[in-house]
């Protein structure tokens, strides 16, 4: 009898065990180090006293709901429905990389390079807006539809438009929630009572409790403003779109004007005005091993992940391959990453020249001086002479 029971239990565990993800009752509270939160040089985790932790948790539930019942106070019923649907879709397609909170920390994330985006900073790389602005809905839709080539983000092109929009709603929601949480945590890290230190200094329990209660009150008072600020930044995204005020000159690829544009692009690339070569190297391959060690150490993005300049010869552009995408990338740089904005000291026409040049580079690597690969067996070849590769019809080896 007991043996049969064991069998039955075993079988039911096998059959039912793997089904579904159990959503926790609340979004877990984010844990940041002081360095991540306020940029101090300290790896110490920001550790909240239980009372403040509880208050913050309650605030977050009040403003953003729970994973099963996400919601925002100010939204219409229809938007709320979208969030519910978006949550279900997110749980199916996104959660295993981007994580429950959108922290880019799902179970698959540790195996990926580059890491999935952590939405909680409200910083997005691939967008049409200014560097500090939020992306527009269209930007998020585009990345969903096309994927980000060269990363593990697949395209969801086959998903119906309605579902994509619901996912975008939920991603924006998670980002708002993450930023809201982060801002309140930042406030604690800078202004909050350090309970442990207070006790160490011999402050009485009653006083500590009073200052904690006072801080909780402040948190609750500032919360609506913080939320409004975050929401406003998303609302404004559409006003901050970078539109090239000079259209891209259209060249015939076989014309001399085109060649001249490529030459100008090359000069800018290798010159000190645009100085692309400083990171992407003189050969465009951005070999990390060849990089100045001081640069290599600095190459960490806002999320603390290694962040290397792109090998331009691969012709893979994560944020989109359209000329306008590349224009925006050069104009505004890449938010959260090391790529600087070139818009202030480059004229639009010059940026278009660089765009032309960069787009041609994968197919004509000889546009830049390519070093011969160092052959291990031979003693010579270490002179690092810049050998100009044969001719224009040379194709990129990487393709």
């Amino acid at each position: 009898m007991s043996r049969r029971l064991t069998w039955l239990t075993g079988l039911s565990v096998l059959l039912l065990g793997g089904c579904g993800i159990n959503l926790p009752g609340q979004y877990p509270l984010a844990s940041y180090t002081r360095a991540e939160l306020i940029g101090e040089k300290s790896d110490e985790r920001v550790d909240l006293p239980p009372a403040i932790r509880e208050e913050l948790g309650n605030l977050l539930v009040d403003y953003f709901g729970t994973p099963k019942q996400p919601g925002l106070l100010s939204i219409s019923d229809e938007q709320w429905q979208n969030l519910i649907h978006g949550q279900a879709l997110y749980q199916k397609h996104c959660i295993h990389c981007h994580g429950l909170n959108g922290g880019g920390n799902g179970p698959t994330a540790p195996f990926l390079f580059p890491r999935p985006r952590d939405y909680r900073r409200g910083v997005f790389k691939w967008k049409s807006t200014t560097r500090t602005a939020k992306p527009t809905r269209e930007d998020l839709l585009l990345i969903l539809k096309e994927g980000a080539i060269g990363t593990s983000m697949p395209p969801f092109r086959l998903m119906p438009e309605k579902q994509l929009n619901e996912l975008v709603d939920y991603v924006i929601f998670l980002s708002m929630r993450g930023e809201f949480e982060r801002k309140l945590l930042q406030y604690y890290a800078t202004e909050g009572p350090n309970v442990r230190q207070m006790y160490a200094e011999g402050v009485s329990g009653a006083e500590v409790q009073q200052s904690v209660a006072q801080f909780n009150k402040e948190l609750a008072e500032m919360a609506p403003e913080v939320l409004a600020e975050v929401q406003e930044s998303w609302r404004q995204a559409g006003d901050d779109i970078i539109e090239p005020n000079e259209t891209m000159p259209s060249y015939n690829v076989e014309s001399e004007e085109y060649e001249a544009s490529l030459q100008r692009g090359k000069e800018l690339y290798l010159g000190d005005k645009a100085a692309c070569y400083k990171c992407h190297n003189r050969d465009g391959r951005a070999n990390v091993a060849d990089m100045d060690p001081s640069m290599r150490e600095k190459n960490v993005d806002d999320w603390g992940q290694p962040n290397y300049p792109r090998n331009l010869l691969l012709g893979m552009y994560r944020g989109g391959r359209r000329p306008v995408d590349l224009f925006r990338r050069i104009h505004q740089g890449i938010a959260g990453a090391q790529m600087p904005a070139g818009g202030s000291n480059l004229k639009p026409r010059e940026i278009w020249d660089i765009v032309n040049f960069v787009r041609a580079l994968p197919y004509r690597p000889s546009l830049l001086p390519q070093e011969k690969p160092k052959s291990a067996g031979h003693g010579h070849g270490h002179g690092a002479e810049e050998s100009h590769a044969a001719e224009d019809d040379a194709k990129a080896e990487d393709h």
Partner: protein
Amino acid sequence: MSKWAYFFLAVPILVVAIFGASLLFPSLGWGLPENVSTIGKSIDFLYYAILAITGVVFVGTQLALCWLLFIEKGQASKDGRGKYTHGNHRAEVIWTVVPAFVLGIIAFAQMPAWYQARFNGPRVDPIARVVARQFEWRIVYPGPDGQYDTSDDIHVPNELHVPVNRRVRIELRTMDVLHSFFLPHLRVKHDAVPGLSVPVWFDATKTTREYQNENAELSNADFRAVDGTTRLGRICVAIDEAKTPLTSFLKDHLSAETRAMLASYLVTWNATLGAEFEPAVPSGLRSAMIGELNGILATEDLSDPKLTEGINLTASTTSHLASPLGGRKSTLLNREILQDAFPGEIKPLERHFDLACAELCGWGHYKMKGRLIVHETQEELDAWLAERHAEQEASR
């Protein structure tokens, strides 16, 4: 031992039942998908022939196994031991020669199909380069200049576009691991091997549009399950929001046709309705409404010609009411009713020819699913490519 005999007996019965169901109820989607290629017929023939041979042998072996288990039991009970046999030259010759003969026949019978599938390729330039990658298909068209690896290549993720009725060739590659390019409707399957560029060719004899038009009629089970219930749910929500008494709502807002439709759904799905409503309808209201609707609709005589004007409530409807899977005609009827009741809300189901990774990359094909779009003419394909190219060259 007899318990085990029953267990082993269940296996062939189950297998035969599943196979039978896949043939008898195509709407279950357990059988082969519709064939839309010229080579498909011979592939399907081979598939069924091999399935028949192995199926007969499998069922026979299983039955023999069960029978032996029964015999074993009977003999063991007499003297407590099983009966052993060892070495039967004739049996060995038979079980060697017969399978060899069958295999020989299959080997010769499959040669024409194999030749068509793998050797007799069209001597044309590849229409596209299909690059597999976890978990996506990156499809590259040569662009206006007709050359690959130039800056005007057209990149499309997960969508392969080809013209109808033309044998096209693609160049299959992979960026990471072994993938398998699988077009189930075209009976094409080929591995993408790292480091190799594999030519694969196929033709589609039906355009996507044709397929969708025909398939919308056949997809009744989905259609009803997905659309019928949710719409019924929405009617209930609408009734709730209108805050009008149910009777007057039915009279004011719903046409006779919609009421008839409601009636048919209620009859068919009375038992399951509660569970399938959209969660927005509170369960108390739901059951109350179902009860009330049932009551009202029961008093309306469905055979009243005024109520069912324009609807052919004959054999097709009754069969639809009786069978949970429904018939082709009845779905058309339902869709017309629904379209009438909710203009603009109901579109034909968007069905596509699948493109999947047969190495089961991703989660049950899903994460690496693409689609094959078959265009009516070369011009239509060119127009689509030009559109995509323009999109890709956007400078504003």
